């Protein structure tokens, strides 16, 4: 997406019921774009949940990657999307603990949700992205360099980074591929992964800040971007930067 010039664009955000995805979906929709939001929950009233009429929600459980890709595809057809300007594949899950004690189903689920589903969704939406020379944005993690107590999670995020690296070259001139690696963010993910953070949470980036930083990175078409925890700290001391985001 070049600039917010007022033209309504078609946007997909996965994992949008919560955390960074929720804020991204709302932020784009509040600027008049058409947003297709996905999540694993079933929502009884999506207009009320998001509080904006131009967000359409579809249930797409990424633990079943092919089904999730088909659900996204079908929803875009129902919405009459003839092209896709921006897709932010943000949904992810984690498990934390001693890797030798990691249950097989946790390994499989993280790989399905964090890697297989984004791969399959990317393949499915490719023609729509090409139609608009759109932007595919994958949400990785700073853990992608390796982390002892998040071994499988780190692996899936490294997989996404590698996927982005090679696909960017393949899709050159047809669609733009980006990967953004947020550092630890104050979302529900850590609790869901079984990690009690205590005071460490204070150091984490707020989801609002992460969402804004992601949008900035999307506007700038950055190939890759790390949002480290001191990004939040730096922003705290230079409030001046806020207006631009």
């Amino acid at each position, binding site marked *: 997406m070049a600039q917010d010039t007022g033209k309504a664009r078609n946007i997909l955000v996965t994992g949008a019921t919560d955390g960074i995805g929720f804020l991204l979906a709302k932020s784009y929709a509040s600027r008049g774009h058409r947003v297709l939001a996905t999540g694993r929950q079933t929502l009884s009233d999506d207009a009320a949940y998001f509080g904006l009429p131009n967000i359409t929600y579809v249930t797409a459980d990424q633990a079943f990657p092919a089904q999730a890709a088909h659900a996204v595809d079908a929803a875009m057809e129902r919405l009459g999307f003839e092209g896709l300007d921006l897709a932010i594949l943000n949904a992810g899950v984690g498990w934390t603990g001693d890797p030798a004690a990691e249950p*097989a189903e946790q390994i499989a689920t993280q790989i399905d949700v964090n890697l297989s589903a984004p791969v399959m969704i990317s393949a499915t939406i490719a023609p729509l992205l090409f139609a608009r020379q759109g932007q595919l944005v994958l949400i990785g993690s700073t853990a992608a360099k*390796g982390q002892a107590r998040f071994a499988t999670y780190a692996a899936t995020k490294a997989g996404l980074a*590698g996927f982005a690296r*090679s696909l960017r*070259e*393949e899709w050159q001139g047809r669609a733009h591929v980006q990967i953004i690696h947020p550092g630890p963010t104050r979302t529900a993910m850590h609790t869901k992964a079984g990690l009690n953070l205590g005071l460490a949470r204070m150091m984490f980036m707020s989801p609002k800040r992460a969402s804004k930083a992601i949008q900035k990175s999307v506007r700038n078409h950055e190939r890759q971007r790390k949002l480290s925890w001191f990004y939040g700290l730096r922003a705290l001391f230079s409030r001046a930067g806020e207006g631009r985001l």
Partner: protein
Amino acid sequence: MKALITGAANGLGRALLEQLLDDGHEVIAVDIMTEDLDRLAVQSRGACRVVMADMANVTSIERCLRSLREDKLDLVILNAGISATGKFEEIPLGAYERLIHINLTAPLTMAAGLVGQGLMQRKGRIVFVSSLSHVVGYPGASVYAATKDAIAIYARSIAKPFRKSGVGVTTVFPGPIRTEHAQRHAPKGAKENKRMEPKELARMILKAAKRGKKELYPGSAAGMARLAGYLFPNFMTRMMRRIIFDKLDGNTY
């Protein structure tokens, strides 16, 4: 020494198996196609045991782990892998599902299971097979590259926690190998003689495992690619596109 190799029927796995048997070790050979391995097991007079398992299927992997209950392994080489090459968006989703299960879910499930269930000997070692694509990228096989990057980072992540159980970890980053499987995925006009012989690679892997090396970039070409990929990551991926993706003739999966 007692060793286990996944994907032992063909290619690199087969070369590793034969080398280990030649050196007088006991080997558990895991693969989905076992006819040929069964013959080899008979000839080996008990040194080789065959376990049939489908690495694309978690239930089958768990069954394989259960069949190893009585074993204490010194060396495990998680070698089984497949590829999918061509235009990313043209390859069917089912091929990606299989690729990710075999190349990623399987080795992670095996590694966690082997150490978690106490099937590894103290001072034992697990070898993961990543790819040189980890340092240079691989347009034309972006999902294969994703699985190999994931393997490399998993191996790096578990090195410390596994050390507590006395288990070492080695990751191998091979470039092109002269196997039937690699041949199918190679671009048009790729030079056969520039590919590494599976036998030679098997020797290097076993030597690296014995010495407790953390990483192996086999051969001088791999070493050079590693340096170039480190210094000029984006340029190298662009080169890979020209060398491979632009020359691919159709999709293979």
